[in-house]
């Protein structure tokens, strides 16, 4: 099993090298047969890596502790559904998983692009094979998961980290990886198109689709990470501007910018250079983020996990940058724009501002994340910046983005006259002001939350009006309103899917704003003691203990009362994992649309031996998760193939006639 896995990995590496070398040779010498065999080698990488992965999983499931990776990350008593998580819980396994995902993506992308992109496909295969070769190099020679343990085989492994023994951890890493790695595909297409100097926008469609897939996975992956932190880490929050979180957020920001600015290229043939830059940058940031989180250069606390792997990433990053810059400067003349910006009040300028804000946000977060490294290099002192820096700079930027989300759809392409804009603005602005006004009336004074909730009302109204207006037009062709709404959405899935995504993002923003009103209390809670937080009264009822082969548990039983009535019983607890010798708090959460009650059993007071309870009241958190589901729904709609419009057709026909007429006038045949 072990030997087969190692062999399959080696074979995959050879295939990647062959795909790379033969592919380039085939293109240079114009030998079609060589190109075809290179393509097949690239396709074959996926089965080979899958074989290696299956054999590692086999070793994990057979508790083969003679393999170092299995001994270090698994144990016998680990439930089978967490054994999958062993695959990505360590450096070697997670790099193998990276190769698996990349080769899987490449397999699908190469198989599906043959008909529509015959000219690009050989190049795409070469680019993907070279990325793949880098990771397989690590898999084979730097961090092999199939190394035998140098000491005698232990009776049991040292166990999976308790923090990873959660159902979210079974899905968070794979989904985040699908997001991260997914950006390799649009990158490969964009680079190939630029090398080929492809005119036109056909490649931008495939790039955009793959970016949307990757972006969707990345969004869900990031949120799941926050969800996991919230449920597991027990500090009452979900986001801490930690370098690892930031590393995933950076490509999300540039990817978001790309998904918006690419519309300018498709609609108007503008911003071609910019778009290529964004997609290159996004790919670069995904690799850079991996480098940050794995090399140990960034956070002090991770620094002791330093390994030589960082050097390989540095070389790879430099190579990627060199290739991109070289191709870009050689062929940038192929990216000349067809049109220019006509007016400040236009959809185009809305997109420009959106891109500007997203990139500034990205830069600010990057700056804060690498600040310790920069300050050490320049001043010789390691200076870290904290949460306050990130919050202070990002909150206004996010609010501005929310504002643009609302304004964008109100602006017409090319030019909007001020009076049209005023008319479109009226209702949404009134709703926004009404929301903020009501909240002021209710006693809310904090400026940022007031702006945020107001903008939330404003944006949701603009989107509702977009749907309402469109539905009315479609319904005027004799459809019922619900059928018109569905038809409208299916007729332009990208636009209306995009609006649904915006609704989700706004819901998330509202949920995040709730953070401004978090409360918490900590106190010893012996039997019968009570604690008050917000509308709730907590009564300590009793205390239980439990034991199973994997861990033992102690729990406090807390009765929750509201308005004199018992509404729930909660069990904040602590687990002690036997294999890894680690304790872990199990948070108890009662989630309601308005607020979460979040209880942490913080252990015993060593002097009095009384259990200590830490209670948090976190408003609106649930809306972050709901918003994410809405975003997912929006992405699924946006990925549906757009139906050719029929409602607009009777109107478009005269337009075509008018164009034909104009051609006749300008260029008489």
């Amino acid at each position, binding site marked *: 099993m072990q*030997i*087969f896995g190692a*062999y*399959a990995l080696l*074979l995959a590496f050879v*295939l990647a090298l062959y795909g790379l070398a033969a592919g380039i040779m*085939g293109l240079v010498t*114009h*030998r*079609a*047969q*060589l*190109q*075809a*065999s290179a*393509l*097949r*080698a690239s396709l074959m990488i996926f*089965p*080979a890596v899958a074989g290696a992965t299956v054999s590692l999983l086999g070793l994990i499931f057979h508790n083969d502790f003679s393999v170092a990776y299995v001994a270090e990350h698994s144990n016998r008593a680990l439930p089978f559904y967490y054994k999958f998580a062993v695959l990505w819980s360590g450096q070697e396994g997670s790099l193998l998983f990276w190769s698996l995902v990349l080769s899987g993506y490449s397999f699908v992308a190469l198989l599906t692009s043959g008909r529509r992109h*015959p*000219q690009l*496909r050989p190049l795409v295969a070469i680019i993907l094979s070279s990325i793949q070769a880098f990771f397989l190099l690590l898999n084979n020679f730097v961090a092999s998961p199939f190394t035998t343990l140098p000491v005698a085989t232990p009776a049991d492994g040292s166990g999976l980290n308790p923090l990873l023994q959660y159902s979210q951890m079974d899905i968070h890493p794979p989904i985040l990886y699908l997001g991260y790695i997914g950006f390799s595909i649009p990158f490969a297409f964009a680079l190939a198109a630029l090398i080929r100097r*492809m*005119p*036109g*926008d*056909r490649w931008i469609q495939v790039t955009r689709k793959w970016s949307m897939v990757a972006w969707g996975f990345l969004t869900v992956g990031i949120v799941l990470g926050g969800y996991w932190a919230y449920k597991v880490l027990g500090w009452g929050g979900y986001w801490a501007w930690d370098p690892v979180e930031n590393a995933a957020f950076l490509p999300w920001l540039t990817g978001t910018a790309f998904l918006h600015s690419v519309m300018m290229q*498709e*609609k108007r*043939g503008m911003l071609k250079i910019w778009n290529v830059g964004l997609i290159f940058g996004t790919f670069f940031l995904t690799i850079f983020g991996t480098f940050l989180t794995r090399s140990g250069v960034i956070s002090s606390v991770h620094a002791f996990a330093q390994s030589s792997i960082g050097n390989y990433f540095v070389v790879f990053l430099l190579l990627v940058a060199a290739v991109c810059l070289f191709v870009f400067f050689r062929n940038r003349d192929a990216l000349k724009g*067809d*049109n220019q910006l006509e007016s400040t009040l236009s959809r185009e300028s809305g997109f420009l501002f959106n891109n500007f804000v997203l990139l500034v946000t990205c830069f600010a977060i990057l700056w804060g994340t690498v600040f310790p490294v920069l300050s050490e290099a320049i001043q010789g002192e390691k200076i870290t910046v904290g949460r306050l820096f990130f919050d202070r700079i990002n909150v206004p930027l996010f609010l501005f983005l929310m504002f643009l989300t609302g304004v964008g759809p*109100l602006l*017409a*392409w*090319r*030019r*909007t*006259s001020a*009076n*049209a804009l005023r008319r479109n603005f009226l209702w949404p602005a009134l709703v926004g002001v009404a929301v903020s006004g009501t909240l002021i009336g209710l006693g809310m004074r904090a400026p940022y939350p007031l702006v945020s909730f107001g903008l939330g009302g404003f944006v949701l109204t603009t989107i509702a009006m977009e749907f309402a*207006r*469109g539905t009315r*037009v479609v319904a005027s062709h004799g459809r019922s309103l619900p059928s018109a709404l569905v038809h409208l959405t299916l007729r332009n899935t990208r636009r209306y899917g995009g609006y649904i995504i915006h609704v989700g993002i706004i819901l998330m923003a509202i949920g995040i704003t709730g953070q401004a009103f978090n409360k918490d209390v900590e106190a010893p809670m012996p039997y019968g003691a009570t604690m008050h937080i917000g509308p709730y009264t907590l009564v300590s009822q009793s205390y239980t203990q439990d034991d199973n082969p994997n861990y033992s548990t102690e729990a406090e039983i807390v009765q929750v009362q509201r308005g004199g009535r018992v509404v729930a019983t909660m069990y904040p607890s602590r687990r002690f994992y036997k294999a890894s010798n680690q304790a872990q708090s199990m948070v108890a959460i009662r989630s309601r649309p308005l607020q979460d009650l979040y209880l942490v059993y913080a252990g015993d007071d060593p002097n009095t031996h009384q259990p200590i309870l830490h209670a948090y009241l976190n408003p609106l958190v649930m809306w972050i998760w709901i918003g994410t589901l809405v975003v997912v729904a929006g992405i699924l709609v946006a990925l549906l193939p757009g139906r050719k*419009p029929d*409602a*607009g*057709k009777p*109107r*478009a026909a005269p*337009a*075509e006639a*008018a*164009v034909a007429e*104009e*051609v006749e006038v*300008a*260029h008489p*045949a």
Partner: protein
Amino acid sequence: MMLTVVACAVLTAAAGYWIFSARGESTTGSEREAQLQALEERKQAVYDNLKDLHFEHRAGKLNDADFERTRVMLEQEAAGVVAALRQL
């Protein structure tokens, strides 16, 4: 052990056969074809923009002046693309 060797050999042989049995088909299109295709797509994009414009106008998002001005611009752009197509 035997089984492992067989499995490795089978995997290698299958990969090798599949890769080297590939027969190439020419994929290179002519320059002119690519340009034609690009213009065709551009034309489609402008037509779609026109349809969108009509739709938004009917939905009441544009006033008549904005609509007329943008329509003329788009029709000129479309005419330019169509003319370029004819020249090819």
